[in-house]
C-alpha cells in the first residue's frame, strides 16, 4: 500500500454502499417478491434452504442486470436529474469496477441457481440476464419507444424462474404470471415517463412521451391497462387459481383501470403537478405486490 501511495494518484477503493446501489435494490425487492411468489405457488414442497438459495440466486441475477445496465448507461444517467446521483455518473465508482462486479455477480448467480435448483431454472435466469442487458439495455432502449413493451419481458421472468426452480418444469400459471408482469410494465413505466419526461428528453432516450407525445402515451396507458386487467383476471376463469385470487384481481384491476382512465383522458396545464400519473405509478407497484401475494394465498388457502 505504501508503495502505491508513492505512485501518483491511487484511486480510492469502491465503497460497498456504491456497489450495493449499483444493484438497484428497490427494483430487486419486486423481483425477489414475484420470484418468491412463483416458487411458493408451485405444486409440491421445496426444502427451505434450496428455496432460499434459489431466491438469492434470482436476487443476485437481478442485481447483476442492474449493475450492467448502470455500467452501460452511465453517460445517459449523467444527463438525467433522477439518475445523476448514481455511483457511476457521480464519479464515486470507476466503470471497470462496475463491469467486473456485474459480470462476476451474473456468473455467480447462475452457478448458485444451478447448484441449488436445476439447470432449467439456471438457463431461464441466464436468458433473463442476457435479455435485460443485451436486448433491452443495449438494443431496444436507445432505439425505439416500444423499448418498455418488449423489454418488459426481462422483468417478467422472476415468477417463472421461481416456479421452475421448485418444479423443474413450466406450467400455464407461471406463464400467465409472466404475461401479467409483461402487460403491467408499459402502463407502469409510461406513468413514470410522463412525469419525468423532460429527463428522458434531455438524455435522448426515445420513451413514448418523448417520441409519440403525451396524448398518445396517455391513450396507450389506458389501452394497456385494459389488456392487463384481462390478463390479471384470466387465471381465475381458466381454472388455474381460485376465487380468492380472482376477486382480488377483479377489484384491484378495476381500480387500476379507473386510475388509468383518469390519466388517459386528461390533458396537462402549466405547472401541472402530475398527481394522477404519480398516483397511478405508486398504485401500480402496490397492485403487483398484492396480486402476487394473492396468488400464494390462493394456493395455500383456497376458498
Amino acid at each position: 500500500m505504501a508503495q502505491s501511495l508513492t505512485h501518483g494518484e491511487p484511486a480510492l477503493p469502491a465503497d460497498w454502499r456504491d456497489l450495493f446501489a449499483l444493484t438497484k435494490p428497490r427494483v430487486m425487492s419486486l423481483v425477489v417478491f414475484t420470484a418468491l411468489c412463483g416458487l411458493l405457488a408451485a405444486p409440491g414442497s421445496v426444502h427451505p434452504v434450496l428455496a432460499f438459495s434459489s431466491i438469492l440466486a434470482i436476487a443476485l441475477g437481478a442485481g447483476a442486470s442492474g449493475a450492467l445496465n448502470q455500467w452501460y448507461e452511465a453517460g445517459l444517467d449523467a444527463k438525467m436529474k433522477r439518475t445523476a446521483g448514481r455511483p457511476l455518473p457521480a464519479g464515486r465508482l470507476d466503470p471497470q469496477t462496475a463491469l467486473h462486479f456485474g459480470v462476476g455477480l451474473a456468473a455467480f448467480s447462475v452457478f448458485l441457481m444451478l447448484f441449488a435448483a436445476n439447470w432449467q431454472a439456471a438457463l431461464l435466469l441466464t436468458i433473463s440476464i442476457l435479455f435485460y442487458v443485451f436486448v433491452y439495455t443495449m438494443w431496444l432502449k436507445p432505439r425505439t419507444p416500444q423499448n418498455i413493451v418488449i423489454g418488459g419481458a426481462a422483468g417478467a421472468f422472476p415468477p417463472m424462474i421461481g416456479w421452475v426452480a421448485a418444479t423443474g418444469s413450466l406450467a400455464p400459471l407461471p406463464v400467465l404470471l409472466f404475461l401479467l408482469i409483461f402487460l403491467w410494465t408499459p402502463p407502469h413505466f409510461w406513468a413514470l415517463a410522463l412525469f419525468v419526461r423532460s429527463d428522458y428528453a434531455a438524455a435522448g432516450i426515445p420513451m413514448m412521451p418523448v417520441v409519440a407525445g403525451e396524448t398518445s402515451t396517455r391513450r396507450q396507458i389506458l389501452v394497456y391497462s385494459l389488456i392487463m386487467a384481462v390478463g390479471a383476471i384470466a387465471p381465475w376463469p381458466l381454472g388455474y387459481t381460485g376465487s380468492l385470487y380472482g376477486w382480488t384481481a377483479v377489484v384491484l384491476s378495476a381500480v387500476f383501470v379507473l386510475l388509468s382512465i383518469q390519466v388517459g383522458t386528461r390533458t396537462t396545464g402549466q405547472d401541472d403537478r402530475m398527481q394522477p400519473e404519480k398516483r397511478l405509478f405508486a398504485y401500480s407497484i402496490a397492485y403487483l405486490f398484492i396480486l402476487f401475494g394473492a396468488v400464494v394465498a390462493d394456493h395455500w388457502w383456497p376458498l
Partner: protein
Amino acid sequence: MTDETPPEQPFDEAEYRRRQRSRANLMGWMLGGLALLFFFITLARMVGK
C-alpha cells in the same frame, strides 16, 4: 491568465484504509456466509435424495 485545471484533491489515506477495511470485512463475512450456504445446500440435496 487563470489556471483552469482544478486543484488536486489531497489523497486521503485514512479514507483509503477505512474503505479497504470495510470491504475486507464485508468480503470475509460474505465468504463465510457462502461457505455455510453451500454446506447447507449440500445437506438439503442429500436429504432430498
